[in-house]
Every structure is written in C-alpha cells, then in structure tokens.
C-alpha cells in the first residue's frame, strides 16, 4: 500500500505551525505549493545533505521544531547521518523519509533495494527515540499529529507512489538570496 505524496503532505501540513521544514528535491515542490511559509527551506542540490542540514538547524535553534522531508535516494547517500543524528539526539528534530523507490528528480530509476529497504528499521537501530512507518493515508492523517508531539529524534517513513516527472522551478532553487530570506525570517521567528 502507498499514499499519494500531495495528499499525505496536505495531511501533514494541518499539524505544522511555525516549524522549520527542510524539504528535499521533488517533495520540496509539492510542499511549498501546499504550505507557504518563510520557514520552508528547500534543498535541491548537494544531494544527501538534507538530514545533516536539518540537524544543524535543530542544534542552532533548539527552541524551534525542525521537520526534514528527506527522499529515499537522498538518505541512501547519507545513511551515516542517522547515526550522527541519534548521537546528537536533538529533541526538536523529526526526520521523514518519503519512500517511493525511485530517483524521481533524475530519470526515475529505481533505488537499490527499493522493494525491501526498511528506513525506519535503520533509524531504530541507529538509536532514534521513536520510529514509525505509514503507508495508508487515513492512518497517517489520524496519527501524525501525535507523532509530531513526541520528543525527537523521531523518524517517520511515508510510503508514497512515484509521481510524474517534476517541474523544477530553477528560479526558486536554493540560492544565496533564498537562504538569506530564510535566515532573516528565522531570526525574526520566536
């Protein structure tokens, strides 16, 4: 079973207030269309670094909740970050992986182990405080609100359907002006 990404992100957005959201690659474009906020931080380069970037934000702003919407291909490139995050143990970090089994932004080729890799299992073994797997929209919508209240680091696998090729808006890609706007918004956010 799996969820449509846009529907699952809409369900998530209902529970997201003034949190920092680090969104990765194709998920980023669905997310910013659903939830407009100066505290959206999108990453479409330096593949794999989303989780590490989010850890830095969580350590830099322990008073803010940080959600990272990671991709399965991206996380495979930086699996060690699960161990680093568990060791640093930020209570304000919630790490989502949107698992669709493909490198969607770059040709939609399958990821290795796409039919069996258990990312939440990796996270549990690394030492995250709690780990969840959702593959059904109704269950996800019903439970995600309470999951977000758990002390981090929390890990959430969202099993989603592969989508159509993304329309990447290179004008809004992560850049110096975008990061400055985000930083200014974050510095003004308490």
């Amino acid at each position, binding site marked *: 079973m799996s969820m449509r990404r846009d529907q699952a992100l809409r369900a998530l957005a209902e529970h997201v207030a003034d949190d920092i959201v680090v969104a990765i690659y194709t998920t980023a474009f669905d997310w910013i269309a659903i939830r407009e906020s100066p505290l959206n*931080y999108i*990453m479409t*380069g*330096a*593949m*794999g*670094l*989303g*989780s*590490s*970037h*989010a*850890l*830095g*934000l*969580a*350590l*830099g*702003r322990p008073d*803010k909740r940080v959600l990272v919407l990671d991709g399965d291909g991206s996380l495979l490139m*930086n699996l*060690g*970050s699960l*161990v*680093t995050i568990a*060791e*640093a143990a930020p209570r304000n970090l919630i790490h989502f992986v949107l698992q669709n089994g493909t490198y969607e932004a770059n040709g939609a080729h399958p990821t290795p182990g796409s039919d069996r890799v258990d990312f939440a299992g990796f996270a549990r073994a690394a030492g995250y405080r709690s780990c969840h797997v959702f593959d059904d929209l109704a269950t996800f919508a019903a439970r995600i609100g309470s999951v977000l209240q758990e002390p981090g680091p929390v890990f959430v696998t969202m099993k989603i359907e592969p989508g159509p090729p993304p329309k990447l808006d290179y004008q809004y890609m*992560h*850049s*110096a002006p*975008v*990061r400055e706007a*985000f*930083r200014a918004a*974050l*510095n003004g956010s308490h």
Partner: protein
Amino acid sequence: MPDPTRTGQPGDDWREQVFAAFEQGGVELFCYLPDAGLDSFISRANAGNQDRAVVLTTEEEGVGICCGAWLGGKRAVLMIQSSGVGNCINTFSLVTNCRFPFFLLVSMRGEFGEGNPWQIPMGRTTQAMLELAGFQVFRASHPQDAVVMVTEGLKMAWRSDAPVAVLLSQRLIGAKDM
C-alpha cells in the same frame, strides 16, 4: 611521539591558543571526524558544554550541519583530516551557491614525514582542491601561524560570507609514527 612544539607551560601550547581563538571567535559548535592530529581540539570541544561537539560518520555531513547551525544563529566549524576533504567536494556546492560563511580546519597527512602511502594522494591535492572549490586557504607551518590564521580566518569567514580553510601542515602537527 613527543611533541617538540609543546613547552610544558599552560597557555604556551599553540593548540590551546588555537582553541581559545575558536572560543573568542564565537564558535559554539564543533563538528569533527575523530583524528589523531585534531586530538587536542576534539578533547577541548568535548570538555565542558556537552552540546557543542558533534561527532560525524563522514566529513560531508559536517558541511550541512555547519551551514544549518549558522542559519539557526550558531557559529560552527568543521574539523577533519586531509583525506576527508575529498569526501566533501560536491557538498561544498552548498557553501558556494548559497554563500554560507564556512570555516574548515584540516589536519594534513601525506606530506612531511608521512609513512602511509594511502595518505599521499589527498595530501598532495587537498590545498588545490579546496582552492578550486572556492575556499580561501591558509597553510600553517609554524605554531604562531596556526593561531593567527584561525583568528583571522574566522573573522574573514563570518564578515565576508566566505569559505575559509586553515591547513595544519604535517610538519607542524608531526607525522604519525607508523
């Protein structure tokens, strides 16, 4: 092996002065890979405030963490060995594309007195790779170089949103006795 640069007097050790420069420069987070050449800085980072040391599984994680911490209002530095610079190359695009202030401390291997051939390729290419990636690179070969380069390098990184690397040469930190 004995360290000829240590005088035995507290405060005279250049490593203590370098770490003091980090603290005076407002560094609140130290990301690092365990490394003998960085031992003194790692120990100091882990002493006291437990929240300021972040041990990594691979160097490129530190690029993301340091940039994220700065966005959140904390100054962070990355401390790695020269071999790890090669691991970071693609991730430096985050630093340059988004003009993050970034400070990198590198313990050099593969140069003066090196006995491990696996360290030599990155030892020979680290400085050039960093320069190609857009870093301002300062190479410290004497104890006082290290102190002043870290002091001024931190200022340069944060005042001009620039990536700065200070290389601690193997002649300075000593070759590992293999």
